[in-house]
């Protein structure tokens, strides 16, 4: 462990860190360049309006999660009768069929991961708001986990895209995307953007 006196941040030392290429730029007051001399990205000490943007995006995804889970995501036509199924129906189908492994994968990607992301980001935001200074390393790890798993929620959408292409036997049977796919994609996008707009350094600044 380092002693308190050794810990100095780039901000305290008077350096900007370029968001894009991670170059250090010395803060020389008025003379400080507005753009990174190496990659030409705009220079900020922290991501601009990080907390407001992240709150807005994470709340958007929480709202979109309702129609995404309640409305049908897939329409199966079998001999002329249309049957709609929600995300949960698909998961229950796998469990009743006995394909537990695949059921758990879909359950994780479509339900647990989005919940984990939304709750995790809200927890991190609240911890900044109320200046909870404990567990900082763990909260940073939590954020990195959220960043990493973000993209995996697209799984269900890709599966439906493939099923729609392959299961298309005219009047016999066919599979089509249904309305919840739009909301679900919205959930994935807004949680991914929430992770992008969030600046984990704000946890440590408090």
């Amino acid at each position, binding site marked *: 462990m*380092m002693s308190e006196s050794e*810990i*100095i*941040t780039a*901000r305290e*030392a008077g*350096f900007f*860190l370029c*968001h*894009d*290429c*991670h*170059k*250090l730029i*010395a803060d020389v007051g008025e003379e400080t360049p507005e753009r990174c001399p*190496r*990659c*030409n*990205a705009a220079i900020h000490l922290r991501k601009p309006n990080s907390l407001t943007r992240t709150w807005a995006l994470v709340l958007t995804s929480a709202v979109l999660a309702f129609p995404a889970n309640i409305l049908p995501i897939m329409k199966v036509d079998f001999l002329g009768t249309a049957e709609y199924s929600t995300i949960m129906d698909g998961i229950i189908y796998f469990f009743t*069929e006995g*394909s537990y492994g695949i059921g758990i*994968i*879909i359950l994780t990607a479509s339900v647990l991961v989005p919940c984990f992301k939304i709750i995790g980001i809200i927890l991190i935001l609240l911890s900044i708001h109320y200046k909870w200074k404990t567990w*900082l*390393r763990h909260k*940073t*790890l939590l*954020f*990195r986990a959220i*960043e990493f798993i*973000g*993209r*995996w929620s*697209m*799984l269900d*959408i*890709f*599966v439906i*895209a*493939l*099923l*729609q*292409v*392959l*299961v*298309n*036997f*005219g009047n*016999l049977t066919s599979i*089509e*995307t249904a309305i919840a*796919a*739009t909301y679900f*994609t*919205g959930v*994935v996008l807004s949680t991914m953007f929430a992770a992008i707009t969030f600046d*984990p*350094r704000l*946890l*440590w600044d408090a």
Partner: protein
Amino acid sequence: MSSLKVHINDLLACPDCDLLLEQRHLEPGRKACCPRCGHVLYAPKRNSVDKTLALALTGLILFIPANFLPIMTLDTMGFKQAGSIFDGIRVIYESGYFFVALIVGLTSFAFPFVKLFLLFYVSLHLKLKRYPHDLPLFMRWYRHLDEWGMLEVYMIGILVAIIKLHHIAHIHYDFGFFCFIALLFVALASSVSMDKHEFWERIEEKPA
């Protein structure tokens, strides 16, 4: 504040917790992590530019067959239906879900291609020691697109679809399937072999 006597180029800051650190030379294969929050600061690779160039070029060659050739054919009661990755985007578009089609198209098709192209372009120029003015811009685009290319998620999607369908129909794996698997591994290897830290330093050190 003794660290301030060190030159700015020998310092680096952790992007996750802003800790200011002294940069040390590392042997390829090792990695430097932030002592405060654990973020991987840099991880030098051996022959990063050469490897990235070779893998990105291979990926670009595999890209067309992997996306446009049928990945599998479903055979049930005399009916046959084949489909490619690109067909997946087309059918969603045709059924009227433009937003979903757009996102699927970008994440499974456009972004993986652009990522491979950017890696190829940047590593080729670094290899030839040429420094066109758009090199930093392309590196930035790569950084922002990195997480939006979702080939590995799509691969798991293919596996889920196979498990879902193998009860109801016979599945033939077509040439596109094997191209897609190869593309996935090459694309993953190309992003792993690319040492961002070294790439940026090389761009910066360009002879004036």
